[in-house]
Structures are given as C-alpha cells and as structure tokens.
C-alpha cells in the first residue's frame, strides 16, 4: 500500500442558485460532483480541465477555503472536517500550503517581501525575530533570490520573481503538501520552465507532495506522477501520467492532448487528424443527461445521452466512458 498523504472521497460542492427577495433556491450549480483522488507522499497529482471544470473549487476545498457540500478529505488518514480548531492550527494548516495562480494579486502590496515570507512563521511558530530573519534569508536563497531583495516591496519584482517569493512563502513551514493553483499559467513562457524546475527540485529535496491545478498539458506532463482529467465537475480519466499521455483513452483526454500539440505537416501525411471540440462546456447548473461530455464528444453513441457511464478500470487507468463498455 502506497504512502498516501491526502485522499479525497466523493467530494461534492454545489452552489445554490437563488431567485427573488426570499432567496428561493431554484437550482444548484454542481461545481464539483463526486470526485475521488489520492496523493502519495513525495508525488504530484494534477487536476486538468477547461475553466469551469471544478479544479479550483477542489483546490479551495483542500485548503479549507470552501466548505464542501459532502465528501471527506483524509489527511494522513484523518478526516480533516473532524479536526478541532486547535488541531487544524497545529496539524493541518501549517502542513498544507499553497501557491496561487496570479503572482500580482497573491501578495499584500503594502508588505515587504521579508514580511510576506515570514507571515506563516509569525502566525504558526514561536520563533524569535532573529530566527525568523535567518529562516527568511535561507528561503530566499533556496528559491534563487538574493538576500538583499528581502526589503523590497512585491511590485518591484517581475512575475517570475514574484512566483519565487510565493514558493518561498509556501515552503516557510516545511509543509508536507503544497497546492499549486496554475503555478505558471500567469508567467511568460520563457520563465515557466525555470519555475517548474524549481518546484521539481524542491520536491525531490524535501519529499514534498503537490496537488497541481492546470489547464496546460505541457506543464502537467513535465511535473506530474498522476493525472486526473476533469470535465464539468467530474473526473473522466485518472491514471499514471506517463501512461495517460502515451495511451489516452477518454475522447476528452484525446481532444485535450491533440489541442495542446502542434500539428506538423508530416502528421497530416500520416493521417493524424487533430481532434477539435466544437461548442462550449454546458452549464454546470443543468448538466446534460447521461454522459456529460456527449454534447461535444467525437465518438458519441446512442447510449451516451441516456445512461451515465460507470467508472471502468483499464490497465492502470480509471475512465468514465461508454466506448469501453464491451472491453
């Protein structure tokens, strides 16, 4: 049995849609609709999907910024929602940190870098000022910034540098799990590789676990050990990263991979056709019956609009699709 650090079981998050003066509930937005996943110690799980698929809601739930409608989150086997306030403060909060998507808004513009990085230490530990000071300098060094930048304000840095600061803040307490919400999508393409390399090095060095939220498959392929593809609040395909990219099964996964690759002239000669999805993702307020993907699926069958597909295990992959029903 693998060493699991975080497990999500049947997570659901519905937002009520209200109408009128009395706030009558007229429907539910099913942002996350029954997803399950596990993250092993020292490994990376990526949640991939279009915007609106429920990735960020899942990340917020893990960070306890959103309360789930139902489902359990187990941290090292313990139910996070059963933690008392003091247990949360000592056993969960300090050990689960995050790096956000937008490095321009994730830092208080009125605080110096020194204080931004020190905040988790000040809040959670009883270190002296001197100890905090030296820890901040150590962290700056680890993320490749120089100690004399500690007294600058965030606006004096570039996007890539800011994201390094955000990483330093996330590492301040030696966390076990770091939630990376689109860690590089706001950065220049030329900077992305640097930050991804930094994150990978830190993972090896400290045996960190990552929950990565991404829509860019190139990022995911480079960083992940396992990948969950999300569509409209559900996980449609879930498996080891290598295998999933080599042998994508779900039509949606194939479309995503196809969309992220450049189509070369020789591919066209070989008859490899890009899969282009038409239309937009349906509203999570009123998801299509049957398989939620059937409105856009290139391999759609009659059964797809009638029956909800079961989760099937093929090889190492769990997938939710009727195409593989007979196999």
């Amino acid at each position, binding site marked *: 049995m693998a060493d699991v650090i975080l497990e999500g079981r049947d997570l659901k998050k519905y937002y009520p849609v209200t109408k009128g003066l009395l706030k009558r509930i007229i429907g539910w937005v099913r942002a996350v609709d029954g997803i399950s996943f596990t993250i092993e110690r020292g490994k990376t799980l990526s949640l991939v999907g279009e915007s609106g698929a429920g990735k960020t809601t899942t990340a917020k739930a893990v*960070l306890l*910024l959103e309360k789930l409608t139902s489902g359990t989150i187990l941290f090292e086997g313990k139910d996070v929602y059963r933690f008392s306030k003091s247990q949360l*403060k000592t056993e969960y*909060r*300090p050990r*689960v*940190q*995050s790096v*956000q998507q*937008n490095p321009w*808004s*994730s*830092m*208080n*513009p*009125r*605080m110096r870098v020194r204080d931004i990085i020190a*905040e*988790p230490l000040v*809040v*959670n530990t009883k270190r002296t000022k001197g100890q905090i000071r030296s820890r901040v300098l150590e962290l700056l060094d680890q993320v490749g910034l120089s100690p004399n930048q500690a007294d600058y304000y965030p606006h004096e840095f570039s996007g890539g540098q800011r994201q390094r600061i955000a990483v330093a*803040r996330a590492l301040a307490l030696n966390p076990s799990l770091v939630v990376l919400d689109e860690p590089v999508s706001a950065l220049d393409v030329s900077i992305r590789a640097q930050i991804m390399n930094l994150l990978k090095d830190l993972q090896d060095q400290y045996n960190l676990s990552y929950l990565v939220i991404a829509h860019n498959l190139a990022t995911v392929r480079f960083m992940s050990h396992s990948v969950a593809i999300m569509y409209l609040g559900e996980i449609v395909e879930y498996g080891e990263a290598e295998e999933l990219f080599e042998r994508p099964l779900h039509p949606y996964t194939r479309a995503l991979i196809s969309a992220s690759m450049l189509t070369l002239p020789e591919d066209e000669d070989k008859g490899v056709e890009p899969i282009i999805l038409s239309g937009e993702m349906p509203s999570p307020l009123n998801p299509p019956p049957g398989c939620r993907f059937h409105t856009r699926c290139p391999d759609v069958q009659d059964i797809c609009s009638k029956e909800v597909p079961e989760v099937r295990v093929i090889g190492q992959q769990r997938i939710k699709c009727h195409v593989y029903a007979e196999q």
Partner: protein
Amino acid sequence: MLSIMPNIEDKTRPKISGLSRRAHIMRSLTCIVPLTILSLLVLTAIFAPWLAPHDPIKVSMTERRLPPVFMEGGSTKYILGTDHLGRDVLSRAIYGARISLSVSLLVIAITASVGTILGIAAGYIGGRTEAFLMRFTDISMSFPPLVLAMLLSVILGPGYITVVLALSVLGWAPYARLIRGEALRIRNSDFVSQARVSGASPMRIMIKHIFPNVINPLIIVMTMAVGFMILAEAGLSFLGIGIPPPDPSWGSMVADGRGDIDRAWWITTFPGILIGMVVMSGNFFGDWLRDKMDPRLRQL
C-alpha cells in the same frame, strides 16, 4: 517595416511631453498652494500667543468698530480693525484658528478611527455583524445633525467638548460606509485567502492586510473633511450652540459681526475669508491626493 515605428514616436513625443509638463506644473500647484496655506495656519494656531498683537478677549469700549489700517480712520494699532466691543479682529482671528482647527482635527481623528474600525469589521466579518453595523450606519446618516447638536448642547451645556461630541456622534458614518466597501473588495483578494491558508487569525488579517490597504482612500476623505468640519463648527458657533463667548472661533466671530455688517464689514469678512481659505485648501489638496493615489475612488 520596423523603422516606421520610431518615426511615429518622434512626431508625437514633443507635443505630448510639452502638454504634460504644463499639466504637471498645474497639478503640483494644486498640491503646493493648499498645503502651504494649511501649514501656515496650523503654525499660526500653535504660536498664537507670540503672534497676536493684543489680548483677544480684552474689551476696550472707547475703541469700538475701528476700521482696518488701510481705511480712513484706521490705525496700525489694530491692523484689521476692532469689533463691537473694541476687541482686536486680527488677534481674535489668530486665536480663533486654534479653536477652529483643533476642533476639526480632533473630530476628524475620532470619526475616522471609529468609522474605520466599524467599516473593516463590517466588511471583513460580514453576515449579521455587517447587517447590524450597516443599518446602524444608515440610521446615523438619516439623523439631522443640527438637531442632535442642539440637543447635546442643551444637555451638556455649550462648550468645546460639546462641539467635538456633536460633530463626532454622526460624523463616523460616511467613513464606515467607505471603508466597508474597500474592505469587502480586499476581503476577496488573493492575498487575503493566502493569509488564511497561512493560518492568520481574522484579527491579524484585518490589522495587517485590510487596514494598510484602505489607508489611501481614508487619507483622501480625511483631507476633504478638514474644510467641512471647519464649516460645521462655524455653523454651530453661528447658531450660538458652539464655543461660548468670549473665546473666539471663526464661526462665532462671523456670528458676532453680522449685526454690524453695514457699518463694520471687517468684523465678519476677515474670519470669513479664513474659513473659505481652509475649506478650499482642504478640498483642493484632497482632490490632488485622490488623483494621485487612487483614481478608482468615487466621491462620497
């Protein structure tokens, strides 16, 4: 292809920079002039005993309603003339700056602190706390301030403390409104949720994250309020529910002289000019600050 770009820039650059330099000077004037006036007046208030040529409350019945020095019959003894009791208008105006400015600064300090604390609490905590605080604010704003001031002066008797209280009791409400709006905006920002992930307590978030980010609009509204508070104090003194005689405030000087306006215009005019100067300086400086610091802020 690329060489076209610098040409376009060269043509437009001198014009733009010429215009902007002039605009720049005008803009910095709206900061320098009011700031100079305000600081001169504050210095005058502080050093009043050394600056005033006469005792501001000393009555001299033989020298009543003397005109200022530049008019026929005026003397260098009373540069701005005397009032209906023979008191020196210049000395009274200098001492009046003490009361008028200190009342307005004190009231602004009180109202801004109370309003900021309540506004941040309402905006960040939300829910019932917010509903309660904001309804309370609405009630305060709908209450006629003059009636309350009269009530207070009847209960407490007119005086310095009464004036400060009367202006403060309702004055915090606009601050609470403004700061609540800002706090609401900041509450949903990424760095606040990041602070929550770091384990920061609500108190810490309000003090370290929300408060520093509402300072800009707060300072702007505070500067704008300087003029308003002087006018309000003048209004109360004019109605006789402000600073009681014989202590001079600009408002009470205007009130005292209004019966004599046809034969001794200087008694009301000089304190009136001072009030106008402070109000305009406060407004111009506040405007400048607003443009400088936060173009998003709407006027209250």
